């Protein structure tokens, strides 16, 4: 920067212009795929959406009609099962970490949660297969729910811990000063205060696992019937979309787009809505 002040200024401003153009251009370029993907989903998926799509079972190959009704319900059931696994461990685990987790035990547990969150979902699927499918000797919705529940745990734990910690100490101590036992203060006062944020974390987690496919491929497997038994294979939107997408039948391909449209609306709707109404922005 030891050059002539006025002479260098033009050059420096030019470089700044190039810099800013590059920044704007890369931002615009990054948004192009979003437009393309969402655009195609709407254009190709909307025509195939009708009442039958939501209420009927898959039709045999090349026969018109049929739908993804069982897959849509299946997704909700499997997600409910994962919440049964993921929420208690995540919420109560997070509470413990916030209140008692300052020492070595807390460190180990947090570290384990971090490692768990790095594991690809398909490897979690292998875990569920070996633990549940192979021992029960059948594919089941339970195994799928278990796998997705484990995927939920790290996020819910971290969210709960951070939010419980954010509750002002004064609130906690006021409760104790009134003679309320520690555990009642934690559950009724602290948790209730932190609940809005925790609920946000839960909804984001649910939105994420709704879109998971790989772990379900060999746990919940798939089904062409209405199934409510959790110890049997169950259809899910993601696996069904996958099967329809790689098939050569145009009718099924159209249903894959339609299914994607429904799934994307569910997932995006939840994510965007939840993020707008929360104070913090969550990453991953």
């Amino acid at each position: 920067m030891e050059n002539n002040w006025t002479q260098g200024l033009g050059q420096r401003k030019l470089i700044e212009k190039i810099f800013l153009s590059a920044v704007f251009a890369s931002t615009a370029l990054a948004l192009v795929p979003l437009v393309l993907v969402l655009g195609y989903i709407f254009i190709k998926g909307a025509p195939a959406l009708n009442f039958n799509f939501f209420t009927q079972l898959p039709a045999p190959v090349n026969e018109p009609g049929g739908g993804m009704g069982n897959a849509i319900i299946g997704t909700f059931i499997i997600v409910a099962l994962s919440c049964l696994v993921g929420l208690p461990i995540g919420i109560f685990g997070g509470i413990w970490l916030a209140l008692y987790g300052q020492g070595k035990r807390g460190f180990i547990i947090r570290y384990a949660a971090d490692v768990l969150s790095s594991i690809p979902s398909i490897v979690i699927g292998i875990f569920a297969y070996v633990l549940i499918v192979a021992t029960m000797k059948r594919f089941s919705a339970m195994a799928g729910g278990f796998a997705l529940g484990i995927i939920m745990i790290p996020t819910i734990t971290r969210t709960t811990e951070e939010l419980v910690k954010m509750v002002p100490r004064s609130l906690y101590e006021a409760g104790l000063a009134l003679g309320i036992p520690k555990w009642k203060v934690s559950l009724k006062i602290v948790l209730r205060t932190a609940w809005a944020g925790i609920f946000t974390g839960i909804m984001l987690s649910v939105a994420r696992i709704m879109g998971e496919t790989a772990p379900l491929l060999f746990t919940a497997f798939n089904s062409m019937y209405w199934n409510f038994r959790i110890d049997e294979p169950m259809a899910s939107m993601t696996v069904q979309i996958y099967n329809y997408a790689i098939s050569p039948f145009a009718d099924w391909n159209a249903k894959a787009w339609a299914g994607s449209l429904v799934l994307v609306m569910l997932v995006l709707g939840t994510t965007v809505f939840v993020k707008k109404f929360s104070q913090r922005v969550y990453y991953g």
Partner: protein
Amino acid sequence: MRLSRFKRITGDDWFSAITFSFAASIPLLLFLLICLLIIKSSLGFKTFGFGFIVSSSWDPLNDVYGALPFIYGTIISSLIALAIAVPLGLGCAIFLAEVTQSKVKEQVATMIDMLAAIPSVVYGLWGIFVLSPFLGGPSLLVGGVILSIMILPTITAISREVFQAVPHSLRESALALGATKWETFKLAVFGPALSGLVGAIILGLGRALGETMAVTMVIGNRANISPSLFAPAYTLASVIANEFAEATSEVNLSVLVELGLILLVITVIVNGAARFFVWKTTGHKA
């Protein structure tokens, strides 16, 4: 005074014990997962040993297996993804963090988050019918490009956080000295942010390594190592997704679990390194 106080178990004790048992189940589950994977893959390990990692044959007919083509496919597709997503992602992050006058900043941030929310299988569907034909058919390149779209939000979001963690005073000093936006960035922001940016990039890499569905649907699913980016390839996650439910023998199943174990080790190490770098800069975890 309750002299029996030491014998009574209070509600608080129950509370901390119960919540502890939930919390402790996390490392227990992790331990169980690793143990089961090791046990299930031991047959494959006993049969092929460490040579498994450098062998390139994949022949279910004769039960001869090697991991190298999948390691190759995984790494190269991830590198392609980084090559595309890092410049774009950093550019977006700079836009969101440093360009202060834009009114559409939050909308752009929301749109980038939307990219992250789209499920992998939907990207795969789009890949099969739009991206793959555009790029000349299923190949390593298509796999890399689709991965880049998927890891872009991660890189953008973390980099944005990293930039925002750089103290404003540094920027203000540069601006006070008459620096342009570029110079401010180069001198006051980039340096302090660098290790965090490295973390963001490595985190993106970690995500790319484990991505399964979208890649499986466009990469061609062929276990070979070819210098051409337009040749079909195979990744660790893809072969597990394709072949796990259909493994034809005990050895086959065992080597697939072994591949899962290799994938686990790689992603855990990569993610661990990433978190370290991000933590150094921002003071909190990614």
